[in-house]
């Protein structure tokens, strides 16, 4: 399993960076958008007046993080589809590499890029959001990476079966955006209709939001063991299922 993993990860990272549009789209644009939005909304937040919607002051970072994770899931699926269509996966298959190694390498690349994007946002955001002192940054980063890995496992599953790259984007959006929409970010899960509540409770994003929000507010991890457990279950189930259904061509 480990044979080739680090080399492949490093190789894929280099290959990714060689495509300027990919880097701009993944790292540049989110950070740029963040700066633009912050410039517009930042002053309101800084005053911390009670009128500032809770969404902007607390949930915006979580929302942004989820969007970045979602785009990582989509781009993971898209890359796998491109590799599958192009016969790259097939060529890799005729080596001692295992599918899990290939997927893991791509997940590590995505995770690293997600971390870089978020790191840049935190650096840039310091100017606009006086949150640095109150928020347990280290804990939040760990929670965020953990949630991202769990969501990426959905990407695993999705990347294992999606036939073409053109499908990956819209199908990804179709699955991920409702997940984010019902995750409790925009309205409390408890206020949803019973059916939507049931749906929200099977989406891992709901638990990711609950965990991220809690940690952001300085709550201890022990209060979110349920979220951690469910995100772990998601990861295990999706990873195992994806290695079963992985399609090389």
């Amino acid at each position: 399993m480990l044979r080739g993993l680090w080399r492949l990860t490093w190789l894929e990272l280099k290959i990714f960076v060689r495509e300027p549009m990919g880097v701009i789209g993944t790292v540049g644009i989110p950070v740029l958008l963040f700066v633009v939005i912050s410039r517009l909304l930042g002053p309101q937040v800084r005053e911390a007046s009670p009128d500032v919607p809770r969404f902007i002051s607390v949930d915006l970072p979580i929302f942004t993080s989820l969007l970045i994770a979602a785009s990582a899931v989509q781009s993971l699926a898209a890359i796998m589809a491109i590799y599958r269509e192009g016969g790259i996966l097939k060529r890799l298959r005729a080596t001692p590499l295992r599918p899990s190694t290939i997927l893991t390498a791509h997940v590590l690349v995505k995770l690293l890029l997600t971390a870089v994007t978020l790191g840049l946002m935190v650096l840039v955001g310091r100017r606009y959001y006086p949150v640095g002192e109150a928020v347990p940054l280290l804990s939040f980063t760990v929670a965020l990476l953990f949630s991202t890995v769990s969501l990426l496992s959905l990407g695993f599953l999705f990347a294992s079966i999606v036939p073409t790259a053109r499908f990956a984007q819209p199908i990804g959006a179709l699955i991920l955006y409702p997940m984010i929409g019902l995750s409790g970010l925009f309205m409390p899960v408890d206020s949803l209709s019973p059916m939507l509540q049931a749906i929200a409770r099977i989406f891992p994003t709901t638990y990711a939001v609950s965990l991220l929000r809690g940690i952001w507010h300085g709550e201890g991890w022990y209060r979110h063991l349920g979220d951690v457990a469910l995100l772990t279950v998601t990861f295990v189930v999706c990873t195992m299922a994806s290695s079963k259904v992985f399609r090389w061509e």
Partner: protein
Amino acid sequence: MMRQPVIHVDAIRKTYGRTVAVDEISFEVERGEIFGLIGPNGAGKTTTMECVEGLRTADRGSISVLGLDPTRQAYALQQRIGVQLQEAQLQKRIKVGEAIGFWASLYARPLDGDRLLEQLGLSDKRNAWFMTLSGGQKQRLFIALALINDPELVFLDELTTGLDPQARRATWDLVRSIRERGKTVFLTTHLMEEAERLCDRVAIIDHGRIIDIGAPDQLVRRHCPERSVLVVTEDPAAVERFRAIPHVDSVNSEGMHITIRGRGDDFVTEIIHCLAEHRIRVIDFRTELPTLEDVFLKLTGHVIRD
């Protein structure tokens, strides 16, 4: 020398939906030979090869490669074989040197990648992205990747498809050099000329079935024993002289052009003897030997198309 099969395929069958891609195919490949699976596109060559490589699983039948089961012992097998696939690609922006280095890192006893690139004429492309390579350079890189683990057995699927004649010839030399290193080569091709020039033995495959197996010249002799000789001469007695030669089936003349058809290994020699004995003055002399192409046509009733 004792026969040592490195590949043993016994009655494999593979279907896709209702299409039978491979139907009860059996053959053996011996150590140190270049064995070709030849037939038109869609005959089942690639499917058969991919079953042997362990990339597909046959519905029925058994396969043994270097004593291993290609499906159940796929990872052990991958260490010992080299594979070049039809229509495979690499990452667009991977460098040639990176690809070789990465592949080398996957195997227990890799060859020196730099030397391999040098031998394949790719040294100056070390830092080039895969997407910038020409068709011939990509093929050579894929050959390099197939050889990097110093495999005992090399699979080449339609290696020269899409190459210009010059690159094709260079590639044939390469394949021969693989055999000279003591490796076994298993290849597929729909080019009869390639099979004739390169393969020690071929299996002719059509509609998922093997029609016959043997050395190319053996197959030609077996299925197309007739050969013809064209003699251009002004000698009016020539036609009668040729008719008297044993094993001659027919003699047709059109002005000075005489076509003699017959069979047997000594047929051409006998004509030369006859010419010498009767001191027939010859303006032109051409022999036309049947090729694998003719064998294929005879066995299947249709021509193989490029």
